[in-house]
């Protein structure tokens, strides 16, 4: 029964996705500049949140290193921005983050629980202070100017990154490696005894998630024009994806997307309407969400949907 419904729903779902994608891709043609900029921020957070969830969701290793990988992308863009065309810069930003994550992952993914959390957060601070020291003592600068491109270009680059990320996340989730990542989160020791190379799998997935964060950083740097280590390695970027993923719900692939989109829009809305109280309201919303939406917004939607479809069956 379920399977039959699943098959008949699929073309409809694909069509809907395509429609959304087309409307998003054409939006710079008719939407206001402000909307395009807002959408870019939304996509930036979606990219970071989805890539965070790709690793931390199934494995349960809570990484707070997002800001580090994002910042590495930003700095790559600042250093190479003038020398190379932007698409190359973005790829290199992603690759540098990827390599950093491989190294860090190989060293730290044997730590569990709070130790892993602490270390990953420490990485953000380490890079921040290292680059601060480097800039002051070696290059003699404190900040850098990044060559800018138009808002529309930034938007399209972010959208492309988002699409590639979603395809990657989808394939990982539905492959045997997705299952293996989940089993690591459930019982790592047992997973190892079922023939899964847990260390390699964790490290590579961690690195893939870092790749997208680095790419997002490299893109966003071009919009900010001026960056310094404190802007690039903003610890908030480490916490946001965690909150957004929890807010949206990690059970489904689209959970973090909804979470990040609603969250970013909410932030924007509150900042403009209640510039003094926005953090307070934000905090209250977060507390309420954690207390009453254990499965995030997606959980709420699923619950409502179930209620609607049940009442429909009750009528017939």
């Amino acid at each position, binding site marked *: 029964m379920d399977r039959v419904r699943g098959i008949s729903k699929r073309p409809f779902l694909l069509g809907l996705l395509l429609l959304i994608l087309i409307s998003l891709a054409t939006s710079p043609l008719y939407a206001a500049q402000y909307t395009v900029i807002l959408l870019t921020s939304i996509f930036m957070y979606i990219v970071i949140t989805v890539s965070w969830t790709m690793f931390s969701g199934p494995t349960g290793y809570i990484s707070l290193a997002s800001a580090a990988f994002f910042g590495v992308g930003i700095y790559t863009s600042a250093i190479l921005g003038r020398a190379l065309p932007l698409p190359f810069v973005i790829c290199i930003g992603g690759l540098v983050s990827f390599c950093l994550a491989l190294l860090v992952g190989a060293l730290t993914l044997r730590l569990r629980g709070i130790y892993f959390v602490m270390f990953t957060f420490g990485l953000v601070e380490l890079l921040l202070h290292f680059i601060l020291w480097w800039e002051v003592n070696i290059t003699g600068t404190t900040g850098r100017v990044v060559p800018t491109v138009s808002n529309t270009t930034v938007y399209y680059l972010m959208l492309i990154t988002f699409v590639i990320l979603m395809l990657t996340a989808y394939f990982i989730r539905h492959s*045997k490696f997705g*299952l*293996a990542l*989940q*089993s690591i989160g*459930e*019982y790592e*020791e*047992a*997973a*190892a*005894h*079922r*023939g*899964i*190379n*847990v260390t390699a799998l964790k490290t590579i997935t961690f690195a893939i998630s870092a790749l997208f964060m680095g790419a997002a950083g490299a893109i966003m740097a071009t919009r900010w024009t001026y960056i310094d280590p404190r802007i690039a390695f903003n610890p908030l970027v480490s916490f946001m994806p965690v909150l957004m993923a929890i807010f949206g719900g990690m059970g489904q692939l689209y959970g973090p997307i909804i979470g990040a989109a609603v969250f970013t829009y909410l932030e924007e809305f509150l900042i403009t309407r209640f510039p003094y109280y926005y953090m307070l309201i934000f905090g209250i919303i977060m507390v309420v969400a954690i207390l009453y939406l254990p499965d995030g917004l997606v959980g709420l939607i699923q619950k409502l949907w179930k209620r609607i479809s049940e009442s429909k069956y009750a009528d017939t």
Partner: protein
Amino acid sequence: MPILEGKGVTKYFGGLAAVSNLDFTVEQGELLGLIGPNGAGKTTVFNLISAALVPKSGTIKFKGKNITGLKPYKICRMGVARTFQSVKIFANMPVLDNVVLGSFFGVSTGNSSADAVREATELLEFVGLSQLKATPAKDLTLANQKRLEIAGALATKPELLLLDEIMAGLNSTEVAQAMELVSRIRDKKITIIMIEHVMKAIMNMCERIMVLHHGEKIAEGTPKEVATSKKVIEVYLGEKAHAGS
């Protein structure tokens, strides 16, 4: 050539020798029982074979190849699977996925997902869980969780299966079913080492029994030989009981 061979295997926990200078061999197709009082080092032997622990000294050979110091996933892919004394299943995953995982990552890693699901479905039927495919593993009874763990281990296509107290905590009907399952696994030509406290099962099913005490082998032989061994009776019943008889 024996399928598994250990020479001088030693493991210390702090100053305590959990397993000391243990030699053992397991022949192809054999069902070897591993018994001994609590703390004798039985599970440690399993942990050493499956590489959950690394021995301090000694070598373990599987099909003539030295496997000491390899990672657990490598040992699994070579054809050694195990279950755990305290059931270790993937609690929030459906029963089917628990088994599919083994088909994907065990000895044959190139399985397509259709093959893996088919194999897993067959194995669930084999252990008698096909009705519960979609149930989250944590909702199963203990006996069924143990069956599920065995199915998951079998999915990796082992030649040697290590069963660690699969009958502990089961009622007598369930013990009988577990014994029947073990004999059906043997029919698949899989070599088995089993740790068990249920003597009925050990005595009836094993061709050979190895008795451990304080990490040392104190007896080895057919069930009859072991049951009449002076040393074994001493260890299990105490010296006085033996003297009094």
